[in-house]
């Protein structure tokens, strides 16, 4: 079982990313859950979403408190109370995947984080490829690359079911670029 917690801001697509990843796993015949954490948040507010993936049925229906992977869609969440939420429950072996221009090493130093760190400038990719700072598909590419829980082709197949035309093309391109440019290091 792998448990992933996604941090984003309302409207950035963290919930969709969590769900796309679960869908890709399900397409591969695995068992998965994806669910959001809903409060009274509206667009812009910090939000969390969760993905669980396993080879057998998943019975746990509680939130994820000690994630194996934390994905941060927005670098602005690495400050203050939001940072506390991001780092909450991280354990030995947990992996941090962050949308930032920083290298994994400098990010780890900045956060005093010990463990595996992956970074990607997803915002730059999104702006370039999609034309808007919608980073969820790029982050999904980074997750697929660094966590390896699903095959990249499954994610592409899920996208093909969901989108079409230019939107599909641009999102696939974002994933591919992210997949290629994600950097990771063990701090």
């Amino acid at each position, binding site marked *: 079982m792998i448990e992933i917690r996604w941090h984003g801001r309302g409207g950035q697509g963290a919930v969709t990313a969590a769900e796309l990843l679960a*869908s890709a796993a*399900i397409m591969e015949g695995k068992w*998965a859950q*994806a*669910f959001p954490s809903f409060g*009274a948040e509206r667009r812009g507010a910090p939000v969390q979403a969760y993905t669980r993936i396993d080879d057998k049925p998943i019975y746990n*229906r*509680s*939130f994820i408190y000690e994630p194996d992977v934390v994905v941060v869609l927005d670098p602005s969440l690495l400050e203050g109370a939001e940072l506390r939420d991001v780092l909450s429950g991280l354990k030995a072996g947990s992996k941090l995947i962050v949308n930032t221009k920083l290298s994994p090493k400098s990010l780890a130093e900045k956060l005093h984080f010990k463990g595996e760190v992956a970074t990607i400038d997803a915002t730059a990719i999104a702006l370039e490829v999609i034309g808007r700072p919608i980073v969820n598909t790029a982050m999904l590419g980074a997750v697929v690359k660094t966590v390896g829980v699903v095959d990249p082709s499954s994610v592409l197949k899920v996208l093909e079911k969901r989108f079409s035309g230019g939107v599909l093309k641009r999102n696939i391109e974002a994933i591919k670029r992210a997949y290629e440019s994600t950097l990771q290091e063990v701090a």
Partner: protein
Amino acid sequence: MAQRMALSTNYAIAYAVKNCDVDVIAAYPITPQTTVVERLSEFVANGELDAEYIPVESEHSALSAVIGASAAGARVFTATASQGLALMHEVLFMASGMRLPIVMSIANRTLSMPLNIHNDHQDMMSSRDCGWIQIYISSAQEAHDTVIQAYRLAERLDILLPVCVCYDGYVLSHTYEPVEVRDKQKVLEYTPRVERPHVLDPDKPITMGVMALPNYTYEFKYQVVDALKRVPKALEEVDAEFADKFGVKYGLYEEYMCSDADVIMIALGAIASTARLAIDNLRSKGFRIGLFRPRLYRPIPVELWKSVLRKAKMLAIVDRAIAFGGCGGPLFSDVATMFINDSERPLMINFIAGIGGRDVTVRDLEQMGLMAFKSLEEGLKEQCIYFGVRGVDYGL
């Protein structure tokens, strides 16, 4: 062909409704139910489902409209949650009293105040004795399959009662997970259209929704009591037919490691799913504990439940609802009542948990299990524990 998809429970229900070829849908938006009917309206809008979608102006009207449509012979669906169900309250009794095979899904959510959109079972528990068949499910797949079974069950001429399929709001309603979407043609073979004896038809005009005086009202109400008595067996049959067709069987309840258990934990819906892990953990530490998850909750198949539960020394009943001022939670009261005349019966401890969307973790459930064992050893100090309320200490 059946198709394995990643669907939330809400969407899993929408697909089931679509494949049952429902004629009329009436619904009003309420969190966390809304995405059920959003998806259904999409199916109608793009021609995947040939139905009338009535975008009513309230839940009261939603149920009223499907009553009208069902009375006119249509296969109908509505969905709601929380305040919406409370607003429907009076109409619930009319639907069952009129013996209309309405299917409704309920994404269980707490009731105000305070306003809160999250899960507990307060909404349904406040309407549990309204003559509807109530089935609590614990996965998106089960929701999908149960909606299909619900039409088969509701429309049986020996039943003719409305059914609600209850599932935890957000915890299940918004969780994507694998769902085998049943093949439409097979679904329709499984639950074919039925000619009902009493519908609005100018060729055979009848009066529906009569007034009765004290001399006849009780007899009409007893008909509902009688029909409910037939439900457990009918659901077993419906479930067996479902297994024949689709290879999956759910039963009227689910039991896990109950046969040798000293303590049996009883919980509905999502909590019961999570509780499996707590049972595994406690078992690995040597505690003989089991889990009982009622699926059919109204009517309660009393003897069936008792056949599983009576062997335990202690029942740990987890209620996700408060019966304010009562003798414990609603599920607790039901279980306690079924044993009241037995000279030998298990002790019972009640945990009220998960109120207003408060997460119920594996650890919480392990703790409840341990508290049950401690009470078994040292005697019950408290019968009803409001588990996890800050500021309350039961010394257990």
